Structure formats: structure tokens, C-alpha cells
């Protein structure tokens, strides 16, 4: 696609917990973009086997310059022996009587040997959390190091986990480049002690060909469908969301809130739905794959993001690309995407009464829904395309190598 550039292809290692997954399509987009541009990409996944059906489903099997490495040494005594032989000193240094510590030290050492085996120009850690697990051996990784900050690990754990801010500070010192998904997050990271020069922003993007209004089946004459997509964790704000629904029902009855996603918060949700007697107005549809989610967007009338913490929510970009009017809480980087009453609606974070008011307004006004949907699509086409997303990464990788 972009082969006639005047630079040689790079070898880029991307380190993630698992690859590929349904929910983290930004990694898939990133990998596909780099492969298309002719770079060698090695994805290091920290789980056993990656699902081959998913690899195919995302069309990743078409790229010859993509390697997926799975870090699973539990079945590889040979590897462990090899490490012992090549770096016996480590074991003396790290020797403790605690088997668990010992095992995790061995595990990380093995991971690093394997990272270095592929001799990448750049090692890009997909989350600051996964980079932290390598922190004490960070210098042993050859090549430039980059870390992505996406929200939860910094916004939430930075507050709730003791010692996390100090560890992040150390990580930001040791790494060469820090990627943030929004301006809001960049500000936060700099407050944590990251050098401004190291930080760059690459907002997420979405595939505007795949997500388009072409297949929309939405119908304004039946029960209005309000859609939310995301794991059932407290960050997604489904509790304030439910309170908003209870409020909305007082003035408007003909709606159903469809929640796609799975997670540990389910008991709380199901109980609260019963308590608020919202059983007829809320439908928990569980985890859905990419195509199923697309079908949900296609028939929804409104997209609702009541999150209390976000980097930038990819699902909102997808919904906007599908010309869905969005009601979003003003959390994290969401205001960098949505301008209130222009291409969506923004409400103060946690303010469930204001969510209900915005939803009510949209439920009443089909014209406004259409208008916001059209503008939403335009906004995504202008600022959140994969082309832009790929360019920013490529540019940053190249400048890092030239240093």
C-alpha cells in the first residue's frame, strides 16, 4: 500500500496479554496497518495458543510479515534448562526460598530472552500494566521501548493501587516513548512524571468502510433501542446508567436498553435491574462477536456510554461511524471526540439525571437523532480514520529509530 517510501522496513515487536481478541480491535488495526506498510511485525502474546479462527476472522493470516509468538513455558522444560545454562548468574541473584517468586523470575527471564531473540528495532508494550511486569529487567531488552497508556491502568490503578504511581514514574523514566490515547490522558501521564518530549498522542480509530450506515435497519416506529457495548465492570458506569433508565421511564416508556458485554459486575446489574423493576426495559445480551455487534449498531436508535472512566471509547467511534447518535458521559478523552449537540451529546460524568434528560430529548426527536448521526459520521471520517492512526504510529517509530 505504502511501499514506495524511502525508508527500510522496521522490525516491530508488540507485547500484549493476548492476541487477537474481540474486544481489543485496536491491536488488530495497528498490526494490520504496520503489515500493510511493509514492516515486519512480531506480536508477543502472554497466553497459551491464540485462536486460529480469530486470526482468520480478522484476516491476519494474509500477512506474511506477521509472526505471533505465544509465551507459554509451562510445557517447555527444555527452554528453562537452556536459560539456566545461558545465564546461571540470574538464578543465583534471584534465588529465594519462595517458589512462586522464583518461578516468576524465571518466567520473566524467559520472556526477555525470547523478546531479544527476534531482535526488533522497537518493542511496543500494549499497556503500561504489562510493561510494569518487566520493570526490574527493562534494561535487558535490546532495542527502543515504547509503552501505550490507554486509561484504566493509569486512571484507576494509579489511584487505587498503592505504589502504582511510583512504579509508573520509574517505567516512564526507562522507556523511550510513551503513547497516549487522548490529550486528557497525556496530561495525567505528565503529572505522573513522564517527560513531555517522550509523550505522543495517537487517538484510536475505526474502520469506516466496515462500520457504515449502509446496512442500517433502524426503525423509528417501534420500541426505541438504546445500545451500550462494553465489559460489565464498574468503569463502564452501568450503575449510573440504570439510575438514568429508571429516571427516563418516568417520562418515556417505549424504550429498551440493550447491553452487550460480559464480566464480573453481572450480579450487581441483574439485582439492580430487578430492584428498579426495569426487567422489561433492559436486556443483557452477553458477549458478542464483531459481526453481531455490528448488527446491534445497525438496528439501534441511540448509543449510550455512561462510563465513569475511559481513555477514548472505541465503541463510540464505531457507533458514530454507523451514524448512531451518541449520549456519552464527559469522562476521559470523550470530549475530544464529541462536541455537545453537534455530533453527539455530552453529559457531566456520573450525572444520571442529565443522562436521562439527554436520552429523553433524543427519544422524542427523530430529526435530531438523524442530524447528530450524520454529523457523527462526518466527525469520524475527518479525524478517526485508520489511515491517520497508521501514519502517526509509523512516523513515531521512524523518528525513534533515527534518534
Amino acid at each position, binding site marked *: 500500500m505504502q511501499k514506495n517510501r524511502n525508508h527500510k522496513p522496521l522490525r516491530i515487536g508488540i507485547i500484549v496479554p493476548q492476541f487477537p481478541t474481540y474486544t481489543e480491535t485496536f491491536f488488530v488495526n495497528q498490526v494490520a496497518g504496520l503489515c500493510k506498510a511493509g514492516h515486519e511485525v512480531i506480536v508477543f502474546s502472554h497466553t497459551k495458543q491464540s485462536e486460529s479462527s480469530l486470526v482468520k476472522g480478522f484476516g491476519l493470516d494474509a500477512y506474511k510479515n506477521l509472526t505471533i509468538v505465544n509465551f507459554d513455558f509451562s510445557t517447555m522444560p527444555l527452554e528453562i534448562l537452556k536459560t539456566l545454562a545461558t545465564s546461571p548468574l540470574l538464578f543465583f541473584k534471584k534465588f529465594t526460598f519462595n517458589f512462586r517468586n522464583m518461578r516468576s523470575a524465571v518466567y520473566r527471564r524467559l520472556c526477555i530472552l525470547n523478546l531479544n531473540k527476534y531482535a526488533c528495532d522497537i518493542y511496543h508494550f500494549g499497556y503500561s500494566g504489562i510493561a510494569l511486569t518487566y520493570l526490574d529487567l527493562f534494561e535487558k531488552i535490546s532495542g527502543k521501548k515504547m509503552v501505550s497508556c490507554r486509561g484504566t491502568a493509569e486512571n*484507576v490503578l494509579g*489511584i*487505587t493501587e498503592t505504589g502504582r504511581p511510583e512504579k509508573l514514574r520509574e517505567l516512564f523514566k526507562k522507556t523511550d516513548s510513551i503513547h497516549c490515547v487522548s490529550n486528557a490522558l497525556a496530561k495525567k501521564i505528565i503529572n505522573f512524571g513522564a517527560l513531555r518530549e517522550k509523550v505522543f498522542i495517537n487517538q484510536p480509530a475505526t474502520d469506516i468502510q466496515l462500520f457504515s450506515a449502509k446496512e442500517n435497519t433502524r426503525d423509528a416506529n417501534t420500541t426505541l433501542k438504546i445500545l451500550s457495548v462494553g465489559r460489565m465492570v*464498574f468503569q463502564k458506569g452501568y*450503575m449510573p446508567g440504570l*439510575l438514568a433508565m*429508571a429516571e427516563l421511564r418516568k417520562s418515556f416508556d417505549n424504550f429498551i436498553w440493550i447491553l452487550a458485554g460480559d464480566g464480573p*459486575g*453481572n*450480579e*450487581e446489574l*441483574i*439485582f*439492580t435491574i*430487578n*430492584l*428498579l423493576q426495569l426487567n422489561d426495559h433492559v436486556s443483557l445480551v452477553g458477549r458478542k462477536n464483531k459481526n453481531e455487534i455490528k448488527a446491534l449498531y445497525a438496528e439501534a436508535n441511540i448509543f449510550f456510554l455512561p462510563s*465513569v*472512566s475511559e481513555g477514548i471509547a472505541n465503541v463510540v467511534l464505531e457507533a458514530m461511524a454507523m451514524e448512531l447518535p451518541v449520549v456519552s458521559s464527559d469522562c476521559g478523552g470523550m470530549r475530544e471526540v464529541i462536541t455537545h449537540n453537534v455530533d453527539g451529546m455530552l453529559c457531566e*460524568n*456520573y450525572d444520571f439525571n442529565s443522562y436521562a434528560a439527554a436520552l429523553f430529548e433524543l427519544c422524542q426527536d427523530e430529526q435530531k437523532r438523524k442530524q447528530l448521526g450524520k454529523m457523527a459520521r462526518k466527525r469520524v471520517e475527518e479525524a478517526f480514520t485508520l489511515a491517520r492512526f497508521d501514519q502517526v504510529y509509523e512516523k513515531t517509530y521512524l523518528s525513534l529509530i533515527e534518534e
Partner: protein
Amino acid sequence: MLCNRGHSVTVFCSEKNQRLLDDLFPGVTNLDIKLLNKATIFKNWMMFPFIGMNQLNIRGSLMPQVYYAARAFTINKVKADIIHFEFSGIGIDFLESIGNIRAKKVVSCRGSAEKVKLLMYDERKNLFRKLLKKVDRVHCVSQDMVQTILPYSDEPGKIFVNYPSIDTGYFMRNKRKERDKHLNILSVGRVTFQKGYPNALFTMQYLKQQDLSFTWIIAGSGNAVEEFIFKIHEFGLTKHIILAGTKSREEVKELMENADVFYLPSLYEGVANVVLEAMSMELPVVVTKSGGMAEVIEHGEDGLLADVFDFRAQAGHILNIANDDDMAENLGRNARKKVMTKFNLEIQTTIFEAVYNELLQTPHAEK
């Protein structure tokens, strides 16, 4: 209490805390604690390896069958007249072998197992229905709980209510806290979604907007701590809230002595014992109408009630207590009176004793 009345009691459990035991039951001789875990059950099985053999079942796996039978055998060795499953979840765990236990059976319904678990899983509904059929009597901690489980029982006659009780002698205020301008709000209970702490931040936000000088102390820990801490920061309430962690009985009593108001923002409850304790300590309480709480408290008389999620009303109640010392005083005094007369151990034991006695005179329920 049952021991004091001359009954002999055996408690089956998986862990034993000897120190707490000596603390709570000094010099009690007719109490026996039997550990019921894999090791003790195996020991019994070794002595009588043929138990469970008649359970041989080609379809199911052998081990659980033998385990269940051996467990029932361990219990039967005590030759109890009555077996009381203190939680319906434990009763369900015993369901397979409940017919093998030779005693009258009572099961208690106290809260989460009935309020949440039954909503979650259809399978659980069937098991619960079976359990209610197989036991002789069903104990509920409140009328509200009776309503919750009624759809699962064809024999409402088996169900009886016995409210919890607390030790009013122990939970007695020794010193009176001087009321100053600053309000100490206390909550005690695990930090799980049930207790509604993150939601209660809306209440605290409102109090802050009203310029009330206050501290909210929460004693307890649990799996919603991360969410709670995060939201405390987000709401800008770090200076107003103290997460005190898990506290012992003495420490809880001390916290209650230093509090001005007790706050229970729960989404659901059977009946919250901590509220009874706070009332016994003459604290004015602000409580959500969760589960059986509305049966305990008469609004305006011995406590203040508000709807779950009605944060405005909850905050309003706390403000009223802050602004009206006489009302606070009255609520506290009446609260202690209420607990002394209605939620004392004497009443609770008498009801259980009567149910147990009656059971001994009736034939066995369906096996």
C-alpha cells in the same frame, strides 16, 4: 443461649477460631465444634469404608457420591434431634445426601443466597425449590424474606419468621459522645455491591454541597474496594471519608461510641445485625428500605428510613440529625428500647426452641 437452656449443641463448620470461641462462650460445656472438611470426613470414611458403597452409581462419578454419604455419616454420628442449616446455600450443598441425615431439618434464609443467587441462575431455583421441599421447617429473618422465597415453596406452613437478635448487654453505651459541630457518620459492613457504598457517595456529595462538616467512616473490606476508592477520588471526597478496613467486635463498639449517626445505604438485606447493634448503642440510624429493615425501624420513631437510591432523602435525614440534637437523642433512646424489647436473644431463642420442640413431635418430612 441454647446451651444455657440445657440443650447440647454441635456446630459443624470448616474452620474454627478457638480464641474467639473462648471469648464468646467462656465455661460452656455442652457446646461442641466439629470440623467438617475433607480430612475429618476421610477419617470417618477410613473407619467405615463401606459407607457410600450403596450409593454406587454408574452414571455419576464415584468420589462426590462417597463424599456426600461419608459427610452425612459424620453428621449422623452426633445423633442430633435437629439439624439446622444456617444458610440455604449450605442446605443446597447437602441436597444430594439430605435424605441420609437422620434428624429433623431446618434451613435459614438470611439474604444474599435468596436475594441475588436465585435471580442469577435457573438451576439454583430448582435446587432451592427441592431444598424447601425436603426440610421440615424454613426459617426467615424477616417478613420480606418470606415474600422473597414464597414463590419457591408449595408449603407456606413450613415457613416461620424469627428476627435476628444481638447482645444488648455488650452493645451498651458506656460513655456519651459530646456533640460538636463536626458530624461523624459511621457504616459497618463488607465493601460489596450489596452495601451500596459507591452509590452512597451521591449522598455525601449532597452533604458537602450543604456545607456540612462531616466524616464518613466505613469499617469493612471487600471486592468493591477498588471501585469505591476510585469514586471517592472522582467525587473529590477524600478528605471526608475514612476507609477503616475490617474491625473486631470491640473496635466496632468503639467506633459506634464515637459516631453521631449510623448509616446503612444497602441495596438489600435480610435484617442487618449492625443496625441492631448501632440502635442498641443508642445511635440514631439512617437506613434504606432494603429487605427487612422497614420491619425493624419505625420511621421517625426509632430511626429514619429512605428509599434505596433516593440519595436526596438519605442526605436530608442525615442533615436533620445533624441539626436537631433533641431528635437525634430521641431516636437513639427509642432505638435501644426497640432492640431491648423486640430483638433480644431471649425472644429469638424461645422461638427457635418452640419450633425445635414441635418438630420432635411430628413425623419426618418427605425423603
